[in-house]
């Protein structure tokens, strides 16, 4: 076995060569959830990311881009193993792609320890926004609580009095509840916690029916949310109860799967495919042309992540070894986002607007999200004060 | 070419690496009752298990109704017309008496007077009373009757009984003997294994004695009746 390992290592070494001259290309380690119930999210981020590189002619900041893609299977320890390989074997310059916060937290420390920049296209754990904020972590999406906060504020403003909250029984789920309740001040009928990965909600729906709430807010990522909405409608609850969700439970991927039952559902987002800026129009049109579907907000974030790297590499003229320069360039954010303007806060999380969307039919008859209005303007997250980074 | 229904020639059978049968030859003619005798562990059960395909014959030939059947699967041999009443009865404990009987009922060889449930119940009246009981709840004697009835319901051309009366109370044993007498009267071909030599001499005509996996003696009832030395030497009685 010793021999086998040596041979393997030598083979690997000869295949890859060594990457001493870092500046002749940009190496990005793209680690995301590409299989299982959460795969839809990772696939959209990947497609958005790749579309941006294509728009840049296969380059990032003028240098040839090499993107190594790997699947974390939504398992923290798999993510760690791949991260280790990216850092120590492939020696990537940037990493991106992680969808879920728990994966991010598992993989984060070694990335920062090796002084590699992580550009998050989705995961925005509160730890990295607050006391564990890090100079090597940038988030182009949001802080996890933000979308829940936006829904909470809207539900509160609209005067709903009795809301049932549904989330999986895991830290992300409990954080979502906290985010919602930060701006919703009315009565919470019940906080229902489901098993993570649960797909049958018969028992929960029965419970909700007996509570007779006027609104239900749920945070159930991926396939969980799809099933919840379908079963919610099938149980006849939609007649008396308004459904609310953060944008990720009501985006194009979910709409495609659920269809008509989602009509009339409210959700929050910081981006929508019908935003009218030029960059977004081009992005949405090309994405549809390339992949034959409407982009989701994950795709938009993947697209922005690539543009951020592109701008930073261009800024430092390829001198990727100068970590301070790269960081300053990233903080400067010299590109135009598809969501319009946003800027980085001191914790490298975005300060941006959040919108309310409703699901309806567009002029072509497709069921899709329509932007209703702005809930928050220039909204920052609740944790930035705990971040000691300057 | 032969009037024998069953014709075994040079049968050899082994369990793993230890050989049990060393060239056993045996014939049973249509309509006769034959016996297989010998002390414990001499190969009687192995012989009938080999006939039924439950043990793989390592050598020799088994002909049944003109066909070579060694190497056939047990179910094919069963359908060809051999029915076994095994040692220890082995009725299905989780089936009722009725189910034990009807589950395997068949008349593949167009018997003139096929066995039916009613006929079995008439033959073994005590079974009718237990019709709905699970097989596992029967007494030893009832189980043996059920096992015989189950075999008869397949309307076999050859009925094999391994230890026909073993472990039964004397009265029950007598009833089994009476049944076998009646079956012989109806022309059923039977190969029977048992320890009660005197009763077998009365029931059957031709006898084969096995000694350590080989045929040690064969002859008719009169010969066996006459030579008590054989009883003592080969049968341990």
């Amino acid at each position: 076995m010793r021999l086998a390992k040596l041979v393997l290592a030598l083979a690997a070494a000869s295949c890859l060569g060594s990457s001493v001259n870092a500046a002749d290309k940009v190496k990005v380690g793209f680690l995301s959830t590409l299989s299982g119930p959460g795969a839809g999210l990772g696939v959209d981020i990947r497609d958005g990311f790749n579309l941006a590189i294509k728009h840049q002619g296969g380059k990032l900041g003028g240098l040839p881009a090499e993107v190594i893609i790997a699947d974390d299977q939504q398992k923290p320890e798999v993510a760690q193993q791949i991260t280790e390989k990216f850092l120590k074997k492939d020696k990537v310059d940037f990493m991106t792609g992680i969808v879920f916060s728990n994966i991010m937290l598992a993989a984060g420390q070694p990335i920062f320890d090796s002084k590699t920049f992580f550009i998050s296209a989705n995961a925005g754990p509160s730890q990295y926004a607050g006391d564990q904020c890090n100079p090597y972590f940038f988030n182009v999406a949001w802080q996890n609580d933000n979308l829940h906060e936006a829904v909470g504020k809207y539900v509160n403003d609209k005067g709903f009095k009795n809301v049932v909250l549904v989330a999986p029984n895991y830290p992300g789920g409990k954080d979502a509840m906290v985010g919602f309740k930060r701006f919703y001040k009315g009565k919470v009928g019940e906080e229902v916690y489901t098993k993570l990965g649960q797909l049958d909600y018969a028992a929960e729906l029965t419970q909700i029916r007996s509570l007779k709430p006027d609104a239900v807010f749920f945070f159930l990522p991926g396939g969980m949310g799809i099933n919840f909405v379908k079963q919610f409608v099938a149980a006849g609850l939609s007649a008396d109860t308004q459904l609310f969700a953060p944008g990720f439970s009501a985006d194009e991927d979910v709409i495609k799967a659920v269809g008509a039952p989602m009509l009339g559902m409210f959700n929050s987002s910081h981006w929508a495919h019908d935003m009218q800026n030029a960059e977004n129009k081009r992005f949405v049109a090309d994405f549809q042309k390339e992949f034959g579907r409407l982009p989701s907000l994950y795709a938009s974030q993947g697209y922005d992540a690539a543009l951020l790297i592109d701008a930073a590499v261009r800024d430092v003229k390829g001198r990727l070894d100068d970590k301070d320069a790269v960081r300053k360039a990233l903080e400067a954010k010299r590109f135009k986002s598809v969501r319009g303007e946003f800027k980085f806060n001191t914790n490298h999380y975005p300060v941006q607007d959040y919108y309310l969307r409703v699901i309806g039919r567009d002029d072509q008859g497709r069921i899709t999200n329509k932007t209703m209005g702005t809930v928050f303007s220039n909204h920052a997250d609740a944790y930035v004060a705990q971040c000691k980074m300057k | 070419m032969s009037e024998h229904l069953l014709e075994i020639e040079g049968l050899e059978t082994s369990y793993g690496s230890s050989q049990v049968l060393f060239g056993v030859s045996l014939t049973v003619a249509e309509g006769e009752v034959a016996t297989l005798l010998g002390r414990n562990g001499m190969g009687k059960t192995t012989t009938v298990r080999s006939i039924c395909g439950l043990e793989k014959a390592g050598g020799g030939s088994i002909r049944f109704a003109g066909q070579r059947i060694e190497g056939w699967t047990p179910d094919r041999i069963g359908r060809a017309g051999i029915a076994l009443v095994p040692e220890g009865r082995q009725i299905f404990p989780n089936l009722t008496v009725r189910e034990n009987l009807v589950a395997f009922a068949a008349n593949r060889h167009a018997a003139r007077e096929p066995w039916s449930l009613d006929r079995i119940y008439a033959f073994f009246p005590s079974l009718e009373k237990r019709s709905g009981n699970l097989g596992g709840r029967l007494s030893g004697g009832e189980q043996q009757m059920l096992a015989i009835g189950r075999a008869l319901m397949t309307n076999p051309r050859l009925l094999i009984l391994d230890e026909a009366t073993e472990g039964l109370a004397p009265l029950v044993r007598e009833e089994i003997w009476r049944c076998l007498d009646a079956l012989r009267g109806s022309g059923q071909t039977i190969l029977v294994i048992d320890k009660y030599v005197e009763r077998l001499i009365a029931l059957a005509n031709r006898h084969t004695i096995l000694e350590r996996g080989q045929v040690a003696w064969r002859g008719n009832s009169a010969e066996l009746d006459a030579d008590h030395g054989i009883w003592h030497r080969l049968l341990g009685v």
Partner: protein
Amino acid sequence: MSEKLDLLLDVRGVSKHFGGVYALNNASLSVVRGEVHALIGPNGAGKTTLIHVLSGALPCNGGRVVFDGNDLERRSMHERVTLGLARSYQITNIFTRLTVLDNVAMAVQSRVRDWGSSFSFWKPFSLDSAIIGEAHALLAQVSLSGMANRLAGQLSHGEQRSLEVALALATKPKLLLLDEPMAGMGPEESERMVGLIEHLAQQVTILLVEHDMDAVFRLADRISVLVGGTVIASGSPEAIRGDAEVRRAYLGDEVA
């Protein structure tokens, strides 16, 4: 008649039924220290069931078993062996994939009271020369010395039966339950086994279940007859031979 004698095993009214069918029905039996006690009866009379009940492989549904002053109820199989009650099996039950020597050594080692604990994790067994020595001695006793390093599964039937006895013997029992030790043996092998049992009888009390009447009448000091789960007679070989009920129910015409 045997009240004043030194009872080693006292079986009092033991019953065992399997779903309504009685295998043992109020069976009583006593074995005196030092004797060879034979248990005979037709197949299916409950002999093996009784052995199972005595050795603890099956729980009984009623009655008591007292062995060497100990009530055996609720004693597990291995506790009974520790008390000095060992058995052989009717269907040979040895470790076919172990060597003959290992088979016996394993049995010798079971006597923790003599060797210290079997919960010894570190010391190689090959250094346990006392155990191995005794195993060799036992093999000599059952005439298997030459086979010590063969796999037990490769022995002939008769040799396996001898090994079976050696295993039971290795536990140094007070009472040895031998379940049909001669089953399936040829005359020569049977003869050898009878010799072995005669030899063992000088060291240990034996309860012998056997079909071979010649052997039974040769070996036994006393005989009990089990029919239909009940002991219908107990006594000297002569008394049993002359017992009318025994003749009717079991021996019948077979023993003329």
